């Protein structure tokens, strides 16, 4: 294709550069908005992959003695379900939103390190492809998403004498994949910390920063301190597997528990990495759709920081059954109980934000309210799990599966969809269909409860986790069937969303710049924003700079609030 370049009255034809082509604009971009979209789209693709894996699991478990999947395949599928959802869906999705929205919210032109930003994305994509390609070799990781030693060192989890199978590279795919993804996370985390601390518009003190930016900042610090633990553990694993070391092998003086301590020192902060940005999104959406500011801003912000610090003190609550000394168990029970407090404070503040408001029950708000309702259940069964002797019974059972899915699906995923419906208009200039969105919301709400509530009962009835089938006659069959029906209900909701998404991209209602009459700076731009974001530096005199601009007579800073 030819382009014309005009220089002082002389016009020269030249070939279009790759960076000017449609593909090139995406492949070579360093713009945080494009990178954010790439993260989000990639993450959504992996959501579909992980969701398919979930449906396979639920189909196999719908009935006792299921024959849908062999144990070898099932064990790969459940491992990859967890690994994909955590590392390739939720984390990149939240980084994607952080990338797109955070610089706009602080009135910045871009992230502090645009090329590092692009690097982080491409490493994620490569890591995700690498990890998922393992299925093509029938060597997908099969040791669980947590990949405990020494099972991970028996290579493909064969019987002790390896009569019936040959060792495989499953655990190598996992360790190398996770190392690569860790690099992407650290790159992103560094970028967020510097951007948020150094590129805020004048007048935007930390005390006036949107909650989503606060939570992204805390999450970035968590990543910086947690990912190295995982990387170290993975490197030691690769050394054991290939270079003859024995870090995790008891017979040579090593200890399998070393893996668990290193892994969960990552793994627990990780779950807060998966939820804190979502807390931030909810803290933006509920105020806008309640038509009043967030209640207790300072408490919500600082409870996020408290959760960040405390998240490093609770890791062994994943290890209550391993035989730790009782004093140690009591310490971790205490720290786990403590961390529930700042979380409860947030929930109360969100409820108080709605109280006395004028609730606009559009789809982002439906998902946000659904989030609070579902995350509460996850929090309650989480506190139950902190009761150590009760945990001895239900750890490693379906009760924990219920807990983690209420907080990760009822929590993170509901929050992510709230964010998608909220910020889609800013990113595309179109609104996502309201009716289809409502349908998706109700399918999700019913589906999540139908899938995961019965799992509490299954755990109480003695069903362990990670089993590829179960016998009849134990009273487990009905609840498993209900869970499978629920899973397909959720899947229907996902299909509704995909339909809505495609329809809205093509012919959705134009949104304008500020469809929700929102409060924060990202809405003070065109939809989508120009590549430079803001033509002039925004004026920030309170926590709601855009609200102030639109309502100069009752601006927050005029009313004596922050």
């Amino acid at each position, binding site marked *: 294709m030819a382009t014309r370049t005009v220089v002082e009255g002389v016009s020269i034809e030249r070939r279009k550069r790759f960076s000017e082509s449609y593909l090139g604009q995406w492949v070579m971009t360093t713009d945080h908005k494009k990178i954010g979209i790439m993260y989000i789209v990639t993450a959504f693709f992996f959501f579909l992959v992980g969701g398919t894996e979930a449906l396979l699991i639920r189909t196999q478990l719908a009935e006792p003695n299921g024959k849908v999947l062999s144990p070898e395949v099932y064990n790969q599928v459940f491992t990859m379900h967890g690994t994909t959802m955590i590392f390739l869906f939720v984390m990149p999705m939240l980084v994607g939103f952080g990338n797109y929205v955070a610089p706009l919210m602080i009135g910045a032109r871009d992230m502090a390190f645009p090329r590092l930003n692009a690097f982080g994305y491409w490493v994620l994509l490569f890591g995700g492809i690498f990890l998922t390609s393992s299925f093509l070799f029938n060597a997908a990781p099969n040791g669980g998403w947590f990949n405990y030693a020494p099972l991970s060192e028996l290579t493909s989890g064969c019987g*002790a004498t390896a009569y019936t199978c040959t060792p495989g590279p499953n655990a190598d795919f996992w360790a190398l994949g996770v190392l690569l993804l860790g690099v992407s996370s650290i790159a992103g985390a560094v970028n967020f910390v510097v951007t948020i601390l150094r590129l805020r518009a004048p007048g935007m003190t930390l005390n006036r920063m949107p909650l989503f930016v606060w939570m992204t900042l805390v999450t970035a610090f968590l990543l910086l301190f947690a990912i190295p633990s995982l990387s170290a553990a993975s490197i030691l694993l690769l050394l054991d597997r290939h270079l003859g070391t024995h870090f995790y092998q008891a017979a040579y003086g090593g200890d399998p528990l070393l893996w668990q301590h290193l892994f969960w020192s990552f793994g627990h902060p990780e779950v807060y990495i998966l939820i804190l940005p979502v807390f931030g999104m909810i803290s933006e959406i509920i105020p806008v759709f309640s038509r009043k500011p967030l209640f207790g801003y300072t408490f919500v912000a600082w409870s996020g920081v408290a959760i960040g610090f405390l998240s490093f003190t609770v890791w062994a609550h994943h290890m209550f059954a391993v035989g730790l000394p009782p004093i140690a168990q009591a310490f971790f029970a205490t720290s786990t109980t403590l961390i529930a407090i700042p979380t409860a404070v947030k929930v109360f503040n969100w*409820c108080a934000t709605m109280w006395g408001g004028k609730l606009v029950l559009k789809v982002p708000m439906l998902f946000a309210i659904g989030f609070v309702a579902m995350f509460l259940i996850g929090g309650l069964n989480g506190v139950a799990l902190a009761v150590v002797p009760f945990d001895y019974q239900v750890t490693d059972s379906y009760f924990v599966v219920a807990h983690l899915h209420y907080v990760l699906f009822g929590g993170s995923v509901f929050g992510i969809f709230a964010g998608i419906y909220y910020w889609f208009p800013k990113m595309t200039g179109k609104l996502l269909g309201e009716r289809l969105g409502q349908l998706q919301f109700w399918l999700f709400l019913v589906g999540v409860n139908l899938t995961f509530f019965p799992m509490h009962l299954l755990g109480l009835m003695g069903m362990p986790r990670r089993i590829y089938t179960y016998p009849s006659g134990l009273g487990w069959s009905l609840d498993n069937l209900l869970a499978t029906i629920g899973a397909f209900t959720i899947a229907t909701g996902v299909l509704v969303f995909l339909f809505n998404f495609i329809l809205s991209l093509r012919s959705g209602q134009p949104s304008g710049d500020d469809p929700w009459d929102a409060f924060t700076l990202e809405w003070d731009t065109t939809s989508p924003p120009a590549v430079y974001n803001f033509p002039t530096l925004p004026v920030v005199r309170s926590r709601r700079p855009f609200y102030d601009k639109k309502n100069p007579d009752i601006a927050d800073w005029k009313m004596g609030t922050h």
Partner: protein
Amino acid sequence: MRMPIFRKMKRWGTLCTVVALFSILFAACDTGNSPSILNTAGPVAGQEANLFWFILIVACIVFVVVEGWIILNVVRFHARPNSPEPKQTQGNNALEIGWTIVPSVFLFLVLAVTIRTMFGLAQPPGNHVTVRAVGHQWWWEFDYPNDGNVTTADSLYVPVNTVVQIDLVSTNVIHSFWIPQLTGKTDDIPGHNNTMWFKANTTGIYRGECAEYCGTQHAHMDFDVVVLSPADYATWLSQQQQAASSSASGMAAQGLALFKGAGGCSGCHGIVGVDLPSYTSSTAANFIGPNLTHFASRHLIAGGILSTTNIHQYNWANDPACQIVNGQVASPSTCGLYQWLLNPQAIKPGSDMVIGHLTPQQITELIAYLQTLQ
């Protein structure tokens, strides 16, 4: 106006649907047949279950209060055409302090009960039966070190009303030992000497499971706990301590010959009196498969993969389907042991039971012999 009436119906309709849906979720709450942690048969599980009920009450209170607040917010404050613009309240410090302190009090109460129960669950001093539980991939071995090192598998026999101490051993991967109706689990970790205890208050059979993902057949590493009266237990123990007879008659003799010879069984399985001088022989450790000395006295085989729904009524040897009538197994397709010997990899793929093809005649002879191992 039509609207208000319709809205009331819609509200009730929604409420009824929600209640109906929720009641489905509590379906199958009847835990009659289940190895439920709430259907306790011993003091350890009993205390752990009491904690559950306590937690449930606290959780329900919080659930009703907070979900109620959410629903109240939606019902009372959702935007209506004549809703006023809300007051732009920023916060209330007194409220913040209040709702930080109140949950903290609740939570610390829960913590106190937790810690008190934890320390109260220490093993009581005094007499106990000690069993070594060895986790293999994928079956449980049970040794009785103080009773001639009797070595069994899959079924754990214990006396009622007696403290049973379980010493957990693994030389391969991490497993976890769980008997929901008797006690919470403890992990079985290579290189660690984890020990746990339980006591059963009533005789009966209780389901046990491996509860830590340990590879391909983690799902089939069940065991059962057979709780006997002290007299029955003593009988069982002394019987287990006897060697198996080194000779047999009729079909069983062919079976014994197969076991020692062409069948290849003695390469992996020890039978005291046949290919193993005693439970404590040094060669015992060379057998990678379960000790079969009193195989016919066990309920479960192969990690529980062939447990029948009538598991509480008889063990495999009494299963009518496995009785030999006129030189034939009564019902080969429903006799678990027959199917296992016919094609173990089809039943438990990945297990170490890799055997050559056996003819139906050979399988019948082996079953006849194994039935003598009472």
